[in-house]
């Protein structure tokens, strides 16, 4: 994750209700926002378990789990309409131009799907999500263009 992107995320998030540094009933300051953001991003970015970063960030594992959940929700609320949307007309125009130059005129992008294996599935749902290898997984379907822009 590039540093400016992190700064942008952090600046957007650091005064939000869950994230800002609060003072508890005994007058002691609670965890700083950067602790929670860093811990949540470690979970997302390194795929760690939630209690892996507890000594590094000095947070409990339930706090890190909560922070991860809230971070994903915050990102989706704030940036889904900007960064995870269908291409606008102008962008689509450009995608078509580039794909025509690559020899696929009229092609909107490439589509594919993959299986994300599911470790802690619920038994009740397990049968619905069987993949062809007999494991439980959730299918992710993405479309992207030449810049790997989803």
């Amino acid at each position, binding site marked *: 994750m590039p540093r400016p992107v992190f700064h942008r995320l952090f600046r957007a998030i650091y005064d939000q209700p869950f994230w800002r540094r609060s003072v508890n009933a005994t007058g002691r300051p609670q965890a700083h926002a950067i602790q929670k953001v860093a811990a949540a991003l470690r979970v997302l970015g390194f*795929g760690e378990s939630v209690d892996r970063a507890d000594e590094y960030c000095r947070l409990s594992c339930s706090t890190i789990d909560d922070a991860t959940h809230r971070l994903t929700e915050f990102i989706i609320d704030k940036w889904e309409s900007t960064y995870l949307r269908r291409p606008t007309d102008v962008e689509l125009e450009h995608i078509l131009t580039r794909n025509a130059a690559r020899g696929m005129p*009229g092609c*909107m992008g*490439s589509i594919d799907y993959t299986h*994300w294996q599911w470790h802690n599935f619920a038994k009740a749902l397990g049968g619905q999500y069987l993949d062809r290898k007999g494991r439980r997984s959730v299918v992710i379907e993405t479309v992207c263009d030449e810049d790997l822009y989803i």
Partner: protein
Amino acid sequence: MNVMASSPLILDVNAGAWPQRTYKYTLNGRSRRLLPYAADAGYPRNALFALPHLKPDGPKLLVYNFLQEAGRKDTERLYAVWWSRWFIMKYPARYVSVLRLIKTAKATAILHNMDVDHKRHGFIAAVRRSAAAADGGSRTGDGQSAAFTKDAGPQQDCAWGEAVAAATPHEPEAADDGRGPIVGSARYMHMAETEAKNTDRHLSLLNDL
């Protein structure tokens, strides 16, 4: 496919909402409005997807397959890049609820897009804007001059064009749009796209290959 039945993109396409009908591209003098996606052979032969030829015989089909693979490789590359940026996508998911899985995948995808945007210094958006302005919407395909006799498909465009002519897609037609012309139209589209390999540019590309 079950996946197709529940994918939000495909649902939008089935409802006639997604590929806008305002775009036309021309292949061999025949224009159509349904923009395809490059997909691999796991997808059904709908008009929405540009699938590879299963048994390419002859240079034209081979070149088509090469180009199509090059386009298709984007998503394969995306999975590598995305998962190396966000390792949580790489490991078996630990969350219990599907909703949370979806949220995680979405959030990492958004962060990935922000990364890409940043790496290009906002280049993507700027380039898209300028290229579209320079293009001016007068884009035609390159297969205009090719004389071909292979066309055994229907003479009309695919259903996307018909729906435009109708201009008021009522419900059954709109639901029919994405999937209706399955075999004939897809094959027709394949043949037309393969015919586009007839041009000098593609032959020179073949020589390069």
